[in-house]
């Protein structure tokens, strides 16, 4: 009897240990000070139309691959520890997304994030928050909610928004977003 329990325990332990890398990758971002929990709106809007979770390891590889063509881009990416994006289609019904927007905003305020810009139009809300420590940026959060979509972006690490434009060209990826 004891042997059976022991065998099951050991099997469970080995299985848990084998799944460690996947768990660790997810937790790698959660433990960082610039991480923000956006919650889950999939029960209201379905699965996000875009979901991005880039951890430090992958960003390091992207940075290395960019170093030859664009040292500037490589330098910018190397300062990032994680990039997370969740985009839902609100489909003319942004109320739930707005509620989540306000909830996350409250969480950010209470956890030491600083508001940088906030736009409160009737048809569109935009919010940019940053978390700083000792003059260094630990993270940036951008949320946009309108009639078409709810965008939640969390950048963990250091990022100079002024350099984004230059870097986007060097990434050589065609991304065309409709501006309202």
């Amino acid at each position, binding site marked *: 009897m004891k042997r059976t329990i022991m065998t099951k325990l050991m099997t469970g332990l080995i299985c848990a240990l084998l799944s460690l890398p996947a768990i660790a990758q997810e937790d790698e971002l959660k433990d960082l000070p610039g991480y923000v929990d956006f919650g889950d709106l999939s029960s209201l809007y379905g699965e996000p139309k875009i979901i991005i979770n880039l951890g430090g390891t992958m960003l390091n590889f992207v940075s290395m691959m960019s170093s030859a063509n664009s040292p500037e881009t490589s330098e910018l990416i190397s300062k990032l520890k994680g990039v997370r994006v969740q985009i839902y289609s609100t489909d003319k019904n942004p109320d739930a997304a707005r509620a989540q927007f306000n909830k996350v905003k409250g969480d950010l305020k209470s956890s030491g994030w600083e508001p940088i810009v906030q736009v409160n139009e009737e048809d569109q809300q935009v919010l940019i928050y940053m978390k700083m420590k000792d003059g260094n940026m630990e993270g940036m959060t951008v949320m946009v909610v309108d009639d078409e979509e709810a965008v939640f972006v969390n950048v963990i690490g250091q990022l100079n928004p002024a350099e984004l434009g230059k*870097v986007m060209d060097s990434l050589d990826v065609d991304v065309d977003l409709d501006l309202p």
Partner: protein
Amino acid sequence: MNKYDDKWEDRINALLDGELSDTDAEALKAEATDDRELAGAIVEAYQLQRAMDAVHVERAPASLRKRLRTIPRKHRAASGINLFQPRWAMALTAIPLAIIAVNLMQPDTPSADEIAKARQQLAIAFAYLDKAGSITGREIESTIAHTMADALRGSVNRTIKFSNEHTKEKEV
């Protein structure tokens, strides 16, 4: 312990237990006749055996004997692998440690496709950041423009008002 303890021990024990053949027993006794140390060892062993025989051994109660007999059965190694045996416990402990070590020493290296996909995802993330920046930038420009316009309008109005009042005073 004399030097014969190891060399002659088996033969002395066999002699005392009556397991030595007559030829071997005679040979041993003959050697002991010429060797005082060997003779002493045989005498000591003989005296020890007699002393042990003299010890009265109490027979344990039947219930205790029954319980004692069950102990080996309870602790008998189960057929196959017993995970409680120290060697198996150590081996099982080593497996998780080996897995952790392999995971730590060999980080997942993404393929070229995965890196290209990550690059594309990063560009999308940056595009959305840029979009948010454009919206807020427009809003800031608009707010500043309105504020400046209001300030200018107020200043102009005040100037016109002052100018009108000044003209009226001159007329008076």
